[in-house]
């Protein structure tokens, strides 16, 4: 059964089309993550799906077209980037939605306390909401939505603006609560880690359009085009030509090197783009065995520290980017100019059709 379905959904702003979604479905008990860069139209899409802004097209909930937006909004819960709590007690904030829906004080208090408990903030029930930390306030905001026992939960980048440990703890807890409650959820975010941690399914939104939908694994390892690939973190997008292709293996020429992949060239193309995720590249100081497939002598041309990771740019007959931990970089002595062996499995890379740019002659 589909909890929510959008068809030909169009949102316009100042006469300009900002979001157009041909089809988007949310199954019951599913967590759908709408992933996209800043300005992609994620929040606009979420607001349109929640009937909070005007949109053209068809919206169906439980198979029935939504005719009364207020009635629909009383079946859902929405959490925004900021907690937006009132200057009241935490308990009153958590019970607000139920109070607005005319639920009795006793019943709304019980539901609010239960939701606060699930989010681990029940001890704050009598505290004034304006005195909470950012993480606590966001937990209360989520509890406020969950207290409604919504049929669909809409989360608009609820972890933004939180420090890393708080965010990590909240993502874990939210994941558990959502799985336990089984509420169908749409989460919009620009954060790939959040998508990977929470999503049953991912929809990549770019320029107001859904560019790809699928399981998180599928989207992250099989992006449909270069833009999606770049956004999901596939930094190695290499033009290649097909040397040979069999049912088991495709041999590609990339620069001066030969690369083997298990994937077939799309539509029998001879010119392809080879997509390799930096995390899939393994760096070693020496070869494991001489017959190792896709193992290349490489020289490190650039070393950048990004948080707890180190980004290596390599020259192995073609440019290649790899990510390693800081500990690995230190232990292996991965400095600029160092010679290493870079390798990746033949099952890792993904192939896209490639239209070589015209030289203009």
């Amino acid at each position, binding site marked *: 059964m589909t909890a929510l379905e959008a068809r030909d959904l169009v949102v316009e702003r100042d006469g300009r089309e900002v979001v157009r979604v041909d089809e988007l479905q949310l199954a019951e008990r599913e967590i759908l993550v709408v992933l996209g860069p800043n300005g992609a139209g994620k929040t606009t899409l979420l*607001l349109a799906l929640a009937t909070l802004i005007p949109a053209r097209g068809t919206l169906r909930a439980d198979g029935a077209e939504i005719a009364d937006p*207020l009635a629909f*909004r009383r079946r*859902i819960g929405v959490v*925004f980037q900021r907690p937006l709590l009132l200057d009241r007690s935490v308990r009153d904030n958590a019970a607000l939605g139920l109070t*607005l*829906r005319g639920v009795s004080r006793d019943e709304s208090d019980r539901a609010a306390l239960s939701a606060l408990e699930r989010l681990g903030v029940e001890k704050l029930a009598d505290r004034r909401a304006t005195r909470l930390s950012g993480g606590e306030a966001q937990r209360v905001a989520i509890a406020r939505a969950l207290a409604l026992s919504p049929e669909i939960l809409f989360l608009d980048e609820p972890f933004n603006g939180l420090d890393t440990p708080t965010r990590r703890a909240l993502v874990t807890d939210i994941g558990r609560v959502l799985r336990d409650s089984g509420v169908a959820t749409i989460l919009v975010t620009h954060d790939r880690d959040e998508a990977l941690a929470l999503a049953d399914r991912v929809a990549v939104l770019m320029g107001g359009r859904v560019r790809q939908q699928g399981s998180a694994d599928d989207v992250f390892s099989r992006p449909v085009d270069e833009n999606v690939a770049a956004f999901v973190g596939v930094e190695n997008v290499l033009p290649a030509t097909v040397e040979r292709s069999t049912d088991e293996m495709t041999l590609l020429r990339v620069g001066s090197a030969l690369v083997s992949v298990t994937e077939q060239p799309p539509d029998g193309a001879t010119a392809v783009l080879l997509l390799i995720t930096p995390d899939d590249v393994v760096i070693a100081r020496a070869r494991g065995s001489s017959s190792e497939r896709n193992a290349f002598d490489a020289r490190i041309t650039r070393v950048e520290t990004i948080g707890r990771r180190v980004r290596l740019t390599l020259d192995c007959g073609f440019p290649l980017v790899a990510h390693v931990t800081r500990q690995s970089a230190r232990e292996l002595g991965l400095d600029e100019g160092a010679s290493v062996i870079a390798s990746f499995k033949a099952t890792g890379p993904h192939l896209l059709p490639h239209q070589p740019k015209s030289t203009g002659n």
Partner: protein
Amino acid sequence: MELIVDGLGEAIRRLVTLDPELREAAATSLVVSGSATLLALASGIPLGAMLGLTRFRGRTLVLSLVNTGMGLPPVVVGLVVALLVYRSGPLGGAGLYCTRPAMVAAQYLLAAPEVIGLTAIAMQSVDPMLRLQLTALGATALQSLVILVRETRLLLLSAAMAAFGAVISEIGASLMTGCNLKGDTRILTTLIVLDTGAGNFGGAIALAIVLLIVVFAVNGLTTWAQQRRTA
């Protein structure tokens, strides 16, 4: 110097003995200005909220008129109301000239723009996302309005203070519409003018002290309520 010393002595005497004329003027001031302020709050908060929260053609013009109203000279308002309620004026038949209701009407016209303008500013200061959150929680327009008024109550208390301050201390409008009738429409400010004109400085000083005490007490009370919420 002797004039001031004598005046202060007389003022103390009138305050200590709770001079009946002084008490009467103070009570009338509170009734008239309090009524005008309450009316201004009752009508100005919804109007100000609508101005602050909605967008419509001509809204900027309306806001400009309200802001102009915040600086209206009391004598101009007094003149307009007096012309309306004067015996031969359009509303002369109602017999309102030289009555407290006429004074309340004039003071209302002075207080209402303060309440409307400051309420509109208070509503505009509300995070637009909070309004969206309330809608998302299933609130009706009226429920949202009530919550937003409650959320901005500190600013609305300021509006109440500004409105009361504007009318309790004005003289022109009250004098022109109430006619300063002893035991009826005489208020603190008009009595101060009368006493000063008659050279009764002691009485005028005593009245001025009472006026200051009234203003301080009302503002002190609202400030206390305001700060209690932020503490």
